[in-house]
């Protein structure tokens, strides 16, 4: 039996007890055996994040997620695309551990979010940076949660700055920088810890077009080098596809996965990628599914 690839059971038990629940007679009578065996699915090798039975209901009774399952591959960029208010931000907030959920389980290689190095880039860079710290200290801040010596920290920063190769004065305070520069600082702050998983919630939507293109390219090249599992929420389908190894389309709420469309074009991708037949095909199919979802009553 191929135990390591099996998702642990939902009942809060630790993974070690998993084998016990496999035999039918350990299933409590109140729980239909069908449901459970459904959950005990195998997942593809190379899966990093497993989400099982995720349920989220808001205080006003809105059911956003009910029994939501999803596997996310390691080292790939998955773009999340879906109708307004379908719960894209909520999903990545729950996965990244900054929002609670009512039921279900989210594991990163068997670890919880708390036990995983996570980078998060918020849409609203103005309210996500620390204005009392200089840009460089903003970038350095998350390093204090890793056990690194001062020299190791400096080396990390050096390496990061080199890979981004940017020419902004990092001794300024965030509010002295342009919007794009601030978001760049946010991205570097998220990446400096060399995260296992990177979350980006509409990171470029508050920026002008030129800056967006610039940051997109930077991000793409760094992600390609670092091979970080990445979840990107974007409301710009071109951007979603261009950056993605896979486009994840969501339905309206209660939210489920409408489709997953892989996109394998070679990297680095650029404006030329966006005129290739593969790109257009992925985009067209995504758009069709998106529109079908939006039109649903």
């Amino acid at each position, binding site marked *: 039996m191929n135990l390591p690839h099996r998702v642990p059971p939902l009942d809060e038990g630790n993974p070690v007890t998993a084998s016990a629940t496999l035999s039918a007679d350990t299933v409590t009578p109140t729980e239909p055996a069908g449901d459970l065996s459904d959950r005990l699915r195998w997942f593809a090798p190379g899966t990093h994040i497993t989400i099982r039975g995720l349920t989220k209901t808001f205080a006003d009774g809105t059911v956003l997620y009910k029994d939501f399952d999803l596997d996310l591959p390691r080292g790939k960029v998955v773009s999340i695309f879906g109708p307004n208010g379908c719960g894209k931000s909520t999903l990545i907030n729950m996965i*990244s*551990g*900054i929002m609670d959920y009512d039921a279900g389980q989210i594991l990163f290689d068997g670890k919880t979010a*708390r036990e995983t*190095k*996570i*980078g*998060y880039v*918020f849409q*609203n860079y103005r*309210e*996500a*940076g*620390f*204005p*009392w710290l200089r840009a460089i200290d903003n970038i350095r*801040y*998350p390093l204090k*949660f890793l056990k690194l010596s001062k020299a190791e920290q400096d080396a990390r920063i050096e390496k990061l700055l080199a890979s981004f190769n940017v020419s902004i004065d990092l001794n300024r*305070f*965030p*509010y002295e920088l342009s919007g794009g520069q601030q978001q760049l600082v946010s991205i570097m702050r998220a990446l400096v*810890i060399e995260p296992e998983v990177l*979350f980006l919630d509409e990171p470029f939507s508050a920026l002008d077009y030129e800056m967006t293109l610039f940051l997109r390219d930077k991000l793409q090249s760094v992600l390609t080098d670092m091979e970080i599992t990445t979840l990107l929420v974007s409301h710009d389908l071109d951007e979603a596809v261009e950056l993605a190894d896979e486009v994840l389309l969501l339905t309206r709420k209660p939210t489920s996965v409408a489709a997953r469309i892989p996109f394998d074009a070679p990297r680095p991708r650029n404006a030329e990628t966006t005129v290739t037949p593969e790109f257009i095909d992925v985009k067209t199919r995504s758009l069709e599914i998106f529109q079908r979802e939006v039109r649903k009553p």
Partner: protein
Amino acid sequence: MSNLTKVLSKMRWLQPVVGAVALILIWAFANFAELVDPVLLPSPLQSWNAFVEGMTEGTLGHDFYRTIFRTMLSFIIATIIAVPCGVALGSSDKLYRSVEFLIDFFRSTPASAMFPLFLVFFGIGEEAKIAVAAFGAALIILFNTAYGVMNARQLRQLAARVMGASKMRILWDVTIWESLPQTFIGLRSGVSMALVIVIVAEMFIGSSDGLGKRIIDAQMIFNMPEMYASIFAAGALGYVMNLLFTLIEGRFVHWGGK
């Protein structure tokens, strides 16, 4: 006409003092025309002379210093107590809700109404004045600090949390910073409140020095220039303290409003 506007725009820098100059002119005129009994309203010059004399040869300087000392001491005590308490209150919903009424109630109670109470506890010495001023200032600082912590924006705390910061770390590294602008509003109002209470306390809680005492003494013997000089000193003190605080605030909370 255009010449006049040119001249006026050149004199822009005068704008802030226009009101003050006007007031002094009206005062001088009222005194000159004897619109008010000259005993009650001496000329601006007489009052100014009394101020300068008091500061250089007389005891105004000493009283001035005593009032500053008392105000600062009460303010420091208030800050040391109220800021940590405010942070604690603001970071715990339960704690805040259970004492919210109490704070609101005492905040609405005029501090002067508490004088007798403090007299009973601290006697009529220095302690009572300091204590009652510290009390008044502390309530304002406490309230504002708690408010600042409570209303700190979520996003930065979430950002720290996702990096792996513990609750205490988030409070220390993010929330407290985030609440600083509001805390400073509290500190600024607190120091003004301390000054008000100290002056009143000097007037009515047996005191041998201080601006409050000086003002009331001058009033008793109808030494009006002296009284105006002391009032002016108290006003200048309040103004300068406020100014100083605004400067410190601008330095310290440099990101405020940005």
